[in-house]
């Protein structure tokens, strides 16, 4: 089976089937990344399309210094950041419940599924740079070195962003539980 780099090379020589194969290999992973970064399927599909269009048009800019998948992820992350910037320009993002993180008692764990926010909502509540780090490390399971290469930051920064991102998520989950429990108490009263 040809490697990603061989397929890209074939595409740059005019083999469009090679490009289709590259897309087929990576489109689900890129879509998953975009979905978790952007929070909506429609936006994620647009960003996935823009990512592959960039590869189609600028494939020659791939230098070969990193794996093709690392470069592709980097293009996708940048595309997602671009979409988020555009979204911020066009609309004010509503402040989500718990986004000000008032509850720091992270040891107070949620204990039932129904009080949890969904993952996309939770991810959208943390800063973008933390979001990309936890998505790559904890959902995609990429190695810290690879994430550092994708994000263009030192490994220590990836560790720190992942750690802080997780902490914010945990605080958010604790806060969701507190709010839900508070509501339940009121209902019983």
């Amino acid at each position, binding site marked *: 089976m040809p490697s990603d780099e061989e397929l890209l090379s074939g595409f740059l020589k005019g083999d*469009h089937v090679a*490009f*289709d194969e590259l*897309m087929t290999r990576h*489109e*689900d992973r890129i*879509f*998953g990344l975009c*979905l*978790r970064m952007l929070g909506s*399927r429609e936006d*994620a*599909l*647009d960003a*996935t*399309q823009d990512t*592959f*269009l960039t590869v*189609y*048009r600028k494939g020659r800019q791939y230098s070969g210094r990193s794996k093709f998948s690392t470069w592709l992820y980097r293009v996708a992350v940048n595309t997602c950041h671009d979409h988020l910037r*555009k979204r911020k*320009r*066009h609309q004010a993002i509503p402040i989500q419940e718990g986004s000000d993180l008032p509850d720091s*008692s*992270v*040891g107070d*764990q*949620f204990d039932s599924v129904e009080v*949890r926010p969904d*993952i996309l909502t*939770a991810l959208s509540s943390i800063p973008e740079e933390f979001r990309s780090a*936890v998505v790559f490390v*904890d*959902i995609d399971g990429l190695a810290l070195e690879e994430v550092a290469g994708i994000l263009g930051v030192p490994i*220590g920064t990836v*560790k*720190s962003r*992942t*750690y802080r*991102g*997780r*902490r914010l*998520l*945990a*605080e958010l*989950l*604790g806060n969701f539980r507190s709010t839900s429990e508070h509501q339940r108490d009121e209902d019983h009263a």
Partner: protein
Amino acid sequence: MHEHDIDRIAAVAEHRLSGQDLAVALAEIDACQECSRSLEAQRTAIAFLQQAPPATLTSIERARLHRAIRPAPTRSRWAKLAPVFAAAAAFVVVAGVVLSHGGTTGAFLPTGKSLENSQAFETAGGARAPAEASSTTAAPATTTMPSSDAMLSSPAPLLARQADELRDNPPAEATTLCQDEARDRLDEDPITASEIDYTGTPAVMYVYPKTALIFERESCVFLEEVPADNP
């Protein structure tokens, strides 16, 4: 908390330590209340994130993605000459009809529409070109390509000319299809918007003073931007 503590807590939460190393790390963390809370937070978040269901494209989304990206099909030399033959054939037919009517009327001059379904354009680079040149006929409100001469050139000048015509003579009722996508691309009120035929694919053109944006009608996928020649 020090960087050293953060590394250690993360290592424990991610199950990267075992044996004696794990025992030592846990003892240190247990001795520090803040460290214990942080470890619990890390574990909570990791467990939550690992429940994330796999995100995959649906078959419709996958088809839409490939349709938007797939390069224009390469055509053989004969296929490339097909529009020339078609134009020549049309000329012969029209000339015959005009001559048979005494050559006194211009009512039988060919229009771009007559060729519209017989050829597809290739865009420069082809990246935004639709996959196949379908034989889809434009809706009645769709504006037609300007002329048969122009049909033989690349689509960009044609589209620019079409945008100019819409700027000069906007239709009474503009379409609202893809208006959100247009707004996302350009935060500006368009002069008008009209359904067009884009290399055989139904599309929508949003016309602005300095540019025009084209979207696929069905999916609202962005196809091309056509800057105005003389904004």
